[in-house]
């Protein structure tokens, strides 16, 4: 039997894997800087200062981290049901669109009604865009990775159509410029600022609340229990009477709802207070729908760990921009650096998981245990116990 100390040692090692992989990616980034005749020391300093070095930097990081956290929390919920949601981008767009439509259609209500209304609309928009691949998977066996990616493409076209047509700012038509954007959305829908700041809005707080809510949902409610049970062992769940298909749909619906919230927060927390498209999803989402997946992986696919993970990853993105300005390297380098971080974090995920797998205390003779299937467990993440620590 493995001693208790041995387990926690392994766990500690396991938790340090994502951090080590980010550092490794940064080292490679530094080598690229050297190759470009830029000083890596200066580069790292610029990055750190740009991300965490000042109030302004911290604000930028927090705002960058917000959609990552929403999406990442959604990823953790889907992951617990053993479903992979690559549709964060589309779900963000749909959440943003529905909340924009709601705001445009009730221009005169007070903020106390407007704010909850647009946030709920964002939630619903994303939820619908998650429920569709969820139902396709549960009832027709359609691979959710493919369907969520495809729905991203559908969502961006839908956004372009709406912002160029029905939702376009009438002023754009008058002027003949036809920039695909909405009019200035009602002020009642502007996300309130925190601490008298003129940039930092309540978005980060909402995202943290969402992470905590997801934690409570997953580990303290019957619905979350079902999600985890289905994710760990579909057969045993079915035998125990859990409605497996409905649970899968619900998990993807909730996952999409989180991304939808991210979309709404992006619109109503934006400086222009409009929804704008440049024709691509990334132009609106800043790729948060994908980067949120990395943040969730970085956070060991646990909603609470995803909070610091999103913050760090947001800092990396903001710091990358600062680096580019400070040492005058091509923008492509920053993209490459982000790509490296993603590749390193994702590819060491399996290693981290193996470290977390506990040694069985009882070794059965494999041949003598015909019913003992070798299960392929998805990672259990930090506290597997229902009353595990964390909050």
């Amino acid at each position, binding site marked *: 039997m493995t001693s208790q100390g041995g387990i926690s040692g392994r766990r500690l090692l396991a938790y340090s894997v994502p951090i080590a992989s980010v550092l490794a990616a940064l080292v490679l980034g530094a080598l690229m800087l050297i190759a470009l005749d830029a000083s890596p020391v200066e580069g790292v300093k610029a990055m750190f200062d740009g991300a965490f070095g000042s109030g302004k930097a911290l604000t930028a990081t927090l705002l960058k981290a917000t959609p990552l956290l929403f999406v990442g929390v959604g990823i953790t919920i889907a992951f617990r049901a053993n479903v992979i949601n690559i549709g964060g981008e589309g779900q963000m767009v749909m959440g943003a669109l529905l909340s924009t439509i709601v705001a445009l259609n009730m221009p005169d209500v007070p903020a106390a009604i407007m704010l909850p209304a647009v946030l709920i609309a964002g939630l619903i928009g994303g939820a619908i865009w998650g429920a569709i691949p969820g139902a396709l998977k549960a009832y027709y066996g359609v691979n959710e990775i493919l369907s969520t990616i495809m729905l991203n493409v559908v969502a961006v076209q839908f956004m372009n159509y709406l912002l160029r047509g029905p939702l376009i700012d009438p002023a754009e038509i008058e002027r003949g410029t036809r920039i695909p954007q909405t009019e200035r959305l009602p002020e009642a829908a502007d996300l309130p600022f925190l601490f008298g700041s003129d940039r930092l809005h309540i978005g980060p707080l909402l995202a943290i609340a969402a992470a905590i809510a997801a934690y409570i949902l997953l580990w303290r409610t019957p619905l979350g229990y079902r999600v985890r*049970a289905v994710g760990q062992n579909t057969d045993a769940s079915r035998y125990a009477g859990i409605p497996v298909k409905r649970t899968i749909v619900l998990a993807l619906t909730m996952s999409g709802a989180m991304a939808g919230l991210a979309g709404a927060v992006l619109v109503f927390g934006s400086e222009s207070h409009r929804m704008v498209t440049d024709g691509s999803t990334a132009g609106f989402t800043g790729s948060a729908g994908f980067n949120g997946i990395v943040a969730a992986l970085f956070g060991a696919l646990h909603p609470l760990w995803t909070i610091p993970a999103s913050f760090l990853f947001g800092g990396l993105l903001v710091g990358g921009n600062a680096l580019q300005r400070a040492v005058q390297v091509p923008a492509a380098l920053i993209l490459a650096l982000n790509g490296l971080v993603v590749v390193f974090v994702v590819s060491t995920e399996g290693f981290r998981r193996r470290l977390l797998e506990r040694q069985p*205390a009882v070794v059965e*003779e494999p041949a003598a245990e015909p019913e003992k299937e070798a299960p392929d467990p998805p990672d259990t993440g930090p506290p597997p116990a229902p009353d595990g620590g964390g909050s």
Partner: protein
Amino acid sequence: MLEMRGITKRFPGVLASDNVDFDVFPGEVHTLLGENGAGKSTLMKILYGLYEADEGEVRLHGEPLSIKNPTDAITHGIGMIHQHFMLVPPLTVAENVALGLKSSRGVLTDLDAVSERIVELGETYGLHVDPSAPIWQMAVGEQQRVEIIKALYREAKLLILDEPTAVLTPQEVDQLFVTLRQLKDDGCGLIFISHKLHEVLALSTRITVLRHGKVTGSVPVEGATRESLAQMMVGRAVKLAPDKTEAKPGNVALKIRGLRVARDRGGDGVRDLDLDVHAGEILGVAGVSGNGQMLLAEAIAGLRAPSAGSIEIAGTEVVGMTPKQVRTTGLAYVPEKRMKDGAIGDFTVSENILLIDHNDEHYLNHGLFDFGAIKKHSRQLVDEYTVKTPTLDTPARNLSGGNIQKMIIARELSGTPEVLVAAQPTRGVDIGAAEYIHTRLIKQRDEDTAILMISEDLDEVFGVSDRVAVMYEGQVMGIVDPRTATREEVGLMMAGVEQDETA
């Protein structure tokens, strides 16, 4: 002919084989007996070259031997009949036997010569098979004969038989034993691995018992009894036949009429089956695996839609209901594959106990889990059913098979069900836990639950049931009283002979 001395094999955290001595003489059947995890398979895998021993020595015919892989083993005349056959289904018997061997004709096959030799071996040892028949068309018993022929064709003198009777009807077992005795008389050494005590006593010349990787005894068959062997396996006296009083059957709690259930691959696996199980009785369903027992169980539990017929639980028609709805009519279900269908390995013991009633308001407080109430409930069940677990928060996968099964049974019986369907309730479970589970089933019967127990283990069927139904190809061949029926009678019915014909 074979000597294994001081064999030691360590796995992380476990001593799988602890200084084990084992030998085989020509012309004897040396049985290796022990519970799951006792080290039987480990020892045989070392002999067959699948594992390497950390310490110890293997000698064959007095020569020290180093076997690195199964090919070495085969070259040295060691053959192994695996529990799960190693045959290629689309190929014929001759092709399977020739597989991996050099042809006497170079690049061309010599299947006709192989076939001749197969027929020859078949005649010598009563292993009759058609060399040109493809494997997939053959019954399990026939496939096993092919496995034995394969080993003999490679001139094996030392045969390892890993639980060879697990998949056979009693008649097939008898037939196998005839062959094995003949091999023994011809001077082969046989290593027989089993945990079925009556078979061990019937076939062996010597018996070595392993427990926790150590030899606890090595005795000649003369003088050994089932009780003495069981005691060596478990380390304490065990009751092999559970005590039970006369059943007092009440009303019909589970009523099945005209049930047809389709197999996954098409065709009806259960055909026009009628069955009644009364409250307060245990109806054992005997049969060779794959004769529709599992389809029947899944249909009752709502996990598989029947194509025709009706199933009533406590007077309620359950065909067409979801598994959850069926459970609310009073069904409890202990599935055959406990790690796949009965428990969630990565969930804690506490969470596993919660699996069927996690929505119960007892465990909730304003919609959130009340972990105090949950702990209390699981603690009570774990204590009552003597589930051995370090803590309630231990993942179920770390428990032994017997304790996982006790945990599942505790969960399923905690709601005092009207009907319990228990599939292979003690398969792969250690004797102590099996003994406990049988006692529990009988206790539940006495509390007026109707129990349908599906089992391939005739000892269990005879020891625990009040009535025995025998299934063959999706139908009930007959229902017998276990107090008066004989194994032979049941065995014939398992092979498809109607009850009337056996009388």
